[in-house]
Structure formats: structure tokens, C-alpha cells
């Protein structure tokens, strides 16, 4: 019986011709795409959960300022970590600190030098694996990854790169700047994709302590309350209230810094390790929103696919009514037929699944490119199969059972007369088509809005000219290098600053000016620039003057417009201003310039003049011969720093990276909208074909009676267009609402204008019309004699 059922199912599938093809193909696309999406969602939701007792690990965030000045940071000063680890905080079992490493980036192994990206380098407390226990130690000891102060921990990838073997214990790496030699103490497995902490070369915190040169009154790194550059993690005992731990840390800080002004103190708040990836320190769900959006899209796609399946299957059911009737007459019971139809659905789904697996293989490279995830998805992973089979079963339940029930219940007498019960269910099919098209329209609408917003960001006035600039990082002698470079004919001018603009400048609350509310904690970005920076970068001074070369302006400050506004001062030029120990005055105001992602507002920024602090060269070429300029820069670099490789970055590429998240969203949306529209069209196409087929005789009769072809096309298309119009009316407000929410996240955004509605609607109608009219025209052109005879 089973082989028979299967054989029949297969034959029925084949007999279905392109109905079956549409069904199988549509479902395969939907399955493949939504499985990838759900995989991504799963990946995001499991961030950092691979650490043992992850739910008891917290990051110590710090809160600064109050009211409008309030800010949350992901970091704490070094003494907080010391206090947490000292046993003075009840409930805390372990505490560790990690920090970025900006002191050097060039390493030498043998006679080979490597310029590593600073984001791959880091400092960590010697016992960091006590808390980050999920990182697998391949070689070396987990309790003592740094056996000596001159140990370094590498990931397998780096060990392979440097030494050609994962087992690099005892091998040495030299820091080029200082010629200090480090011995590999441990090799870790590469950090998983869903780890927030992603360093590849980790130096012991003791090295950072040794390199510390003092900060104001603080002489040791572990006493420095002013530098918030430590990501601090605590592992607490079960049942411990994290808020209490934060309070204790507040108390410890107050005890240590009792003499400070109240505004200088910050509060400490614990955030669970497992939420740090998707939630901001202030609780904002920025990342989670994206996850929800993608999950929603996966479900939308799956429903569109299911709707398609139900539509096509029930439409075809009418064609099969006679068959079902005959079967009943010769002895089939509803149960038999149910089983038969479910097996057919299952077979269709299995075929789709096979196709989906193939499709996933094809999509994986794009998936990686779009998501930026390197590892992760493998078709051999049992979890992937769980997903696939799960999706399959859900689809079977949602899309297979209903048509089977419907068909199995056909009344045999009516079916034999060629009138299935399916006619009565045309209503449901309409609802499904409307739903499907509403979803597609909403996606079209969203794609347009997102496209608009991205174009808007692209055109946004950055407040300076980022074209034809590349940047070079140096360690010293920046000023002299700047001068030789500027003499090259292919180079227009060279400015310097402390950091590259997009890499994030430091911020401080250590400022004072006349009229500042006492105790106000006001955060400002700070950056040292060269005298020609403002003019050469194409920034605009709206008041005052520029820095002048020489020593005279070392206590002069230029602030941006936002700073003027937020500080609440008028006529800033000439006013007293104090940054750290430097009591000076404001000499100019620069028009706001953008150095953060589109989601953030321009923040108050202060430019100061300490050229000797600057490590980043901004080289603007003439624009005609970038190659020549780069060659010249490399040649001069090699003369000055023979032991360092020459590295450069184009500034406009860095800015593109700032908008990468948005661009990714845009691309994803375009892609998913495309898939959704395609699948919806497949469904509509199938339904239109079915309707045309059902009405072949009617069309034949009408033509014999003198109906014109356009009138018949109109007749057949009208119904569907009505459905699509209803879909547009339903979708527009929903999409508008969703997109307004999305745009809320941006400090700079477009408004959604009426033409977006019109365009989305027109596109939906156009696509539907194209799909349906193909079938309608085909039907209208059929020879009436043939269509009449076919009855």
C-alpha cells in the first residue's frame, strides 16, 4: 500500500506539470532563505552563551552624568576590576579585565614582520580564562595562559600564520617598537563567530601596567580612576543580585575618591554577558531589533511560501475533484484519501527540501558576505537539519493538512459532475492572495524607504571633504614626515591628527568653562590636530580663527557648533576654557563634522593643538594620480621606518564602513523583498492560470459571441487586480508604521512622503498585472473552437 501510495504521489506530482514545479520551486526558495535567516537569528541569540555559567557572568558598565548628559559606557576604570577581584565585593567569585591595545601593532617572527590590525590585539588579565571559560585552550594551561610576564596568547589562526603549526608553545614573537620578546604561553581555538570578545593576539595586563606613564594624580594603572578603557567582567555566585554588586562598587569608588566632586563620580551597573551583544549598556535594544526584524522576515517568507502552497494545491484540487470522486465510489474512505494527499504533500516538501539544500549551498557565500560571519553555517551541522526538518514539518502542518482535508471531504456525486467543493473555498483563496500580496507590498514599501534613507545618508553633508584622502598610522616623527610628504607633487596637502576620525576619538568630562553648572558631567570628544587640519580637511570655521604653527596655540581650543549649543554659551570665541590641566581659551568654532554612524547625533567635540601627540597622517592626493601618491608615500615611509610595513586606509572607505550596518540592512531587504515578490508572483501566476483554465469554455463561448481580446483580458485580470488593491490598502499603513519605527533609530533621517505609497502600490499593481495578464492574454488568444471542443 505504501509503495503504491508513493508511486501514485509521484505520478500525481508529475501530472501536475508546472503546478508542481511552481509548488516545489517556490517552497524550496522559501525554505532555503528562511532557514539561512533563522540560522542567523539563532547565531545572534546565542552570542556568548558558550561560556560556562554564562548567565552568572556580567559586564560592569559605567554611567556618567545625569539628565540630558547621561551616558552609559561599556567600560570601567582599572581599579574597579581590582576591587571586584579582591574579594571585597560580596557575591563576586571572579573578576577580570580586558582592554584594547593601541601601544603597537607590528610584530616580528623570525625575519618576517606582521602589521596586525589593532582590533585583533588586546590586553587581558592573567586569569581571564577563569571567566571566559568557553574559549578552548588547545595548548598550554587554562589556569595559567601567561606563565611569565613576557608571555603572549595566540589563537590557532595566528599560530598557524606565524609558525605554520598550532602548537606554538615556547615560540617567540618580537614587538618591533620596543624589541621586547614574548613567548607563546597558550594557543586558543579560534574564537567562535558568536563571541563578542574577538581578539587574536592577547598580551598580559601586566604589560599594560609596565607601559603606563601616569595620568594626573594617578601613578599606577591600577589606581587610575580617570581612564575608562577596561571591559570588566565579573562572575557572581548563584542567586546574587547584580544591582547589589554595582552598589558595592559605587561605594568602593566613593571611598577611594571621596574628595572628588560628586559629578566626577560614575555609577556601575552590571549587564549580563548574554545580552551585551544585542542590547546597549543603557538597555536600548538596537541589536535585538534587527534580530526581531530578521526573524519576522523569515516567518513572513515561510508564510508566503505556505500560502502559495495552499493556494496552488487547492486550486489544483478542483481539477482533481473527479479523480477523488471516482476513488470514493470504488471504495476509498476519507482517511485513505487524506493519507494519499498528505503523502503527496510530503513528497512535494521532500523534493523542495532537497532543492533547498542545494540552494543553501549556492547561497552560503552570499550569506557570509551579507552577514559578515565567517564560519558558522554548515549543511552537515545536525542543528541545520533540525531547522530544515522543523521548517518542513511546520510547512506540512500549515500547508499540507488543510488542502488534504478539503479534498478528502469532496462530495463524490458533485465531484463526478466536475464540480468540486473547491469552488466554495475560492473565498479563502482570495484571503490568502490578499495576505500574500499585502506582505509583498509591505516589503516593497520598506525597501523603498530603506533605499531612500541610505541615499540620504550617502548625500549627507559630512562637514568636510573626504575625497582623495588616505591615512597612515605612525608612531613618532609624524610632523617631519608630514613635511616631506607634502612636498610630493602628486600630494596636495597633508594634515595630522591624534586618530583616524572614524576609529572613535576619546571622550572626557574633564573640562571647565565660565558658566558651567558645578558638578555637571559633560562629555566631549577630544582630538588633537595639526594647525592645517581644519582647512585642509575642508572643514568650515564659523567663528574665530585657526591654530597657528608653533608653540603659541598649545592652550588654544576650537570647538564644534554642537559643543557651543550644548555647553550653553554665546560668543564662545575668546572665552576661557580648561581641558584637563590646560587652562586656555576658545579661539574658534568649527561647523559640525560627522565622524560617527548615522544612528548617532554629532557629539560635542573639542580640537586642541598638540601636534606631537598626533599619530595619523591625512594625505590628500591631487585626485589624478593616487597610485603615484601612494608609491611616493611608501618610498618615504621605507626610508624612515625600514622595519615597518607600509599600511594605508582610504578615508572614504572608512566612512563606508560606518554605514555598513545600514547598507547591509538595505541589501538584505532588497533581497528578501525580491524573494517574497517572486514567490507571491508564482502563486498569483498559478492561480491566474488555473482560473483561465477553468474558464476556457466561458472564454470560448464569449469569443464565438463576439467578445474582443482586450475585453477578455480585462475580464480575467479584474478580479486579481481588486485583490491586489485590497492588499495595498492593508499593507501601506502597516509598512508605514514599521518603517517609521526603523527610522526612529537614526539621528538623520528622511521623512516618508506620499509618493512612496504611490510607488510601492504602483509596483505591486504592475507586477501583479504583468503576472496575471500573461495568463489572461494566453487564454484570450486561444482558438475558441479548440476550447469548446475540449469540454
Amino acid at each position: 500500500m505504501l509503495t503504491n501510495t508513493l508511486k501514485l504521489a509521484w505520478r500525481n506530482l508529475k501530472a501536475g506539470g508546472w503546478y508542481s514545479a511552481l509548488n516545489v520551486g517556490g517552497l524550496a526558495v522559501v525554505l532555503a532563505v528562511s532557514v539561512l535567516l533563522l540560522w542567523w537569528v539563532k547565531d545572534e541569540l546565542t552570542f556568548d552563551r558558550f561560556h560556562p555559567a554564562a548567565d552568572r557572568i556580567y559586564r560592569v558598565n559605567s554611567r556618567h552624568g545625569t539628565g540630558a548628559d547621561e551616558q552609559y559606557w561599556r567600560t570601567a576604570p582599572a581599579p574597579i576590576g581590582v576591587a571586584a577581584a579582591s574579594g571585597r565585593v560580596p557575591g563576586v567569585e571572579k573578576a577580570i579585565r580586558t582592554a584594547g591595545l593601541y601601544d603597537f601593532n607590528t610584530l616580528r617572527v623570525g625575519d618576517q614582520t606582521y602589521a596586525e590590525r589593532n582590533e585583533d590585539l588586546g590586553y587581558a588579565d592573567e586569569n581571564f580564562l577563569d571567566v571566559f571559560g568557553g574559549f578552548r585552550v588547545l595548548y598550554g594551561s587554562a589556569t595559567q595562559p601567561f606563565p611569565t610576564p613576557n608571555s603572549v596568547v595566540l589563537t590557532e589562526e595566528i599560530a598557524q600564520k606565524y609558525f605554520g603549526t598550532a602548537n606554538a608553545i615556547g615560540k617567540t614573537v618580537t614587538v618591533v617598537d620596543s624589541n621586547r620578546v614574548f613567548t607563546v604561553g597558550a594557543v586558543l581555538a579560534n574564537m567562535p563567530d558568536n563571541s563578542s570578545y574577538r581578539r587574536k593576539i592577547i598580551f598580559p595586563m601586566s604589560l599594560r601596567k609596565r607601559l603606563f606613564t601616569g595620568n594626573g594624580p594617578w601613578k599606577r594603572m591600577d589606581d587610575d580612576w580617570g581612564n575608562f578603557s577596561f571591559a570588566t567582567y565579573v562572575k557572581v555566585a548563584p542567586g546574587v543580585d547584580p544591582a547589589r554588586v554595582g552598589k558595592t562598587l559605587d561605594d568602593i569608588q566613593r571611598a577611594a575618591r571621596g574628595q572628588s566632586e560628586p559629578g566626577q563620580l560614575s555609577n556601575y551597573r552590571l549587564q549580563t554577558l548574554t545580552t551585551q551583544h544585542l542590547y546597549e549598556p543603557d538597555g536600548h535594544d538596537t541589536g535585538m531589533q534587527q534580530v526581531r526584524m530578521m526573524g519576522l522576515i523569515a516567518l513572513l517568507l515561510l508564510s508566503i511560501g505556505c500560502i502559495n502552497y495552499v493556494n496552488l494545491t487547492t486550486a489544483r484540487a478542483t481539477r482533481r475533484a473527479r479523480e477523488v470522486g471516482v476513488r470514493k465510489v470504488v471504495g476509498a474512505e476519507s482517511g485513505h484519501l487524506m493519507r494519499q494527499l498528505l503523502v503527496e504533500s510530503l513528497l512535494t516538501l521532500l523534493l523542495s527540501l532537497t532543492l533547498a539544500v542545494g540552494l543553501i549551498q549556492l547561497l552560503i557565500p552570499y550569506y557570509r558576505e551579507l552577514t559578515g560571519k565567517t564560519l558558522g553555517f554548515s549543511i552537515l551541522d545536525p542543528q541545520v537539519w533540525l531547522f530544515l526538518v522543523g521548517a518542513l514539518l511546520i510547512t506540512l502542518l500549515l500547508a499540507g493538512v488543510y488542502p488534504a482535508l478539503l479534498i478528502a471531504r469532496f462530495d463524490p456525486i458533485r465531484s463526478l459532475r466536475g464540480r468540486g467543493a473547491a469552488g466554495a473555498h475560492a473565498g479563502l483563496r482570495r484571503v490568502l492572495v490578499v495576505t500574500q500580496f499585502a506582505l509583498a507590498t509591505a516589503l516593497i514599501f520598506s525597501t523603498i524607504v530603506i533605499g531612500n534613507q541610505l541615499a540620504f545618508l550617502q548625500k549627507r553633508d559630512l562637514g568636510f571633504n573626504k575625497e582623495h584622502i588616505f591615512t597612515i598610522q605612525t608612531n613618532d616623527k609624524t610632523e617631519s614626515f608630514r613635511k616631506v610628504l607634502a612636498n610630493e607633487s602628486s600630494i596636495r596637502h597633508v594634515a595630522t591628527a591624534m586618530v583616524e576620525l572614524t576609529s572613535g576619538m576619546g571622550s572626557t568630562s574633564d573640562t571647565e568653562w565660565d558658566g558651567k553648572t558645578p558638578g555637571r558631567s559633560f562629555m566631549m570628544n577630544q582630538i588633537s590636530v595639526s594647525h592645517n587640519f581644519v582647512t585642509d580637511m575642508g572643514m568650515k570655521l564659523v567663528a574665530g580663527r585657526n591654530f597657528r604653527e608653533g608653540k603659541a596655540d598649545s592652550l588654544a581650543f576650537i570647538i564644534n557648533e554642537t559643543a557651543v549649543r550644548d555647553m550653553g554659551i554665546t560668543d564662545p570665541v575668546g572665552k576661557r576654557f580648561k581641558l584637563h590641566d590646560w587652562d586656555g581659551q576658545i579661539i574658534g568654532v568649527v561647523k559640525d563634522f560627522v565622524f560617527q554612524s548615522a544612528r548617532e547625533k554629532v557629539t560635542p567635540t573639542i580640537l586642541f593643538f598638540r601636534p606631537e601627540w598626533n599619530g595619523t597622517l591625512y594625505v590628500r592626493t591631487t585626485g589624478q594620480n593616487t597610485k603615484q601618491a601612494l608609491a611616493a608615500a611608501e618610498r618615504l615611509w621605507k626610508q624612515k621606518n625600514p622595519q615597518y610595513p607600509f599600511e594605508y586606509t582610504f578615508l572614504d572607505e572608512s566612512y563606508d564602513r560606518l554605514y555598513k550596518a545600514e547598507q547591509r540592512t538595505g541589501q538584505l531587504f532588497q533581497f528578501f523583498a525580491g524573494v517574497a515578490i517572486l514567490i507571491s508572483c508564482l502563486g498569483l501566476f498559478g492561480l491566474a492560470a488555473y482560473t483561465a483554465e477553468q474558464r476556457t469554455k466561458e472564454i470560448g463561448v464569449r469569443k464565438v459571441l463576439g467578445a474582443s481580446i482586450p475585453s477578455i483580458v480585462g475580464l480575467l485580470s479584474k478580479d486579481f487586480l481588486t485583490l491586489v488593491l485590497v492588499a495595498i490598502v492593508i499593507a501601506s499603513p502597516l509598512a508605514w508604521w514599521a518603517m517609521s519605527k526603523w527610522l526612529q533609530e537614526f539621528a538623520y533621517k528622511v521623512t516618508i512622503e506620499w509618493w512612496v505609497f504611490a510607488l510601492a502600490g504602483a509596483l505591486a499593481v504592475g507586477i501583479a498585472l504583468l503576472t496575471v495578464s500573461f495568463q489572461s492574454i494566453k487564454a484570450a488568444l486561444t482558438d475558441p473552437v479548440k476550447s469548446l471542443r475540449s469540454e
Partner: protein
Amino acid sequence: MIQTVNLQKLFATEEVETTALNGINMDVKDGEFVAIMGPSGCGKSTLLNIIGLLDNPSEGEYNFYGTEVSKMTERQRAQLRKGSIGFVFQSFNLIDELTVYENVELPLLYLKTPADERKARVEEALNRMNIMHRRNHFPQQLSGGQQQRTAIARAVVAKPKLILADEPTGNLDSKNGEEVMKLLGELNDEGTTIIMVTHSPYDAGFAHRTVNLFDGKVVTENIRV
């Protein structure tokens, strides 16, 4: 034994109510061959559907081989119908996606007949209807006569007590029609009860008696002499 008492069938649609059967009293004995005749729309097919347990009467009693079935649910009727009634239609009603062999095999599959017995019985029926040589053909590849012979093979393969035929020769030329009637006659000779709707007096001549319907009522009965 088939017996109906005052059988009524009403079709109610939104606008009109049609009385398709209006008090049919009819007895059919085991082994009988009964023809039903009457003008178009008089209720012949409706009666046959009720007799064949495909439909319920609106009123009246229907005793099917000792069981009162007029109030049964569709599921109960399907259970009773299975294996005990064979149907032959004017338009053959073969399943296009199945071969001749598979079409004939279908009733046995639903009866869960063991595979070897199934094979024997399907082959017997095919041989008997003289279409064994077409066993792997699909219905569209057959002539009308061959299709109807397949349909009869399917109707008899489960060896039902009763065969119901609704204008079995309606779509056939006289030569093929004659052949189908002869086959039905043979089946009847072997003891199968047959009730057949027909418009052809010649075909009705094969039956033991003819029941004439008019407007949902039995008007006359002719017994063959």
C-alpha cells in the same frame, strides 16, 4: 435484497426547491436485472445514487440487504458500499493518471486484499473483459469501448453483489454498446444483481423488468416475457 419505501429526495438551493424523487417504492430481488427508464430529469440518476449509497434520501426508508441505511452517515455508507457495489458510468470515470491495470486494482487496494490474490483477481477481470493486452495503457490511449470495459472490470473485480450502471452505453456506438450489454448480461447470469439506467429500449430488453419513472415517481413496470 433491496427495498425502498416512499423514498423522497429534495434538492434545495437558495432560490428553488426541486423534488427529484417523490415517493419511490421499489423492490429488487437478488439476481435480478432491472432497467430504469424515463425522460431526462425525472430522477433516474438520483435514485441510482441513493441505491448505490452515494447519497441519502430526504425521507423514506431504504433497506439494503437487511440494513436500514437511509439515516446513515457518509462514513458508514462508505464502509457498507466498499466491496459490495460496483459502479459503471456513462462517462467511464476512469482515473487518467492510472493505467488500466491500476484502475482495476483500485477497489482491491481499498479492501486491503493481499497482493497475490489482488494480482490474480485483477488479471481475471481484465481477461474476462478482454482488455488484458491494454493493461499498461492509460485511459486516454483507449477507445470508448475499451474504456467502458475497463470500468466494468473495475466494477466487478471485488465481486460485488450489486452492480449499478448509469447509461453505460450512452457514450458508445451500437457495436460497442452491444458488447457491454452482453457482458452485463453474463454477469447477471452468474448471479450478480444489476440495476441499470438507460434511454435505450433495446438495452432495456436485456433486463428482466423495466421500471418507468416520471417526475420522481414510478409510473409503470414492464416485466419481460
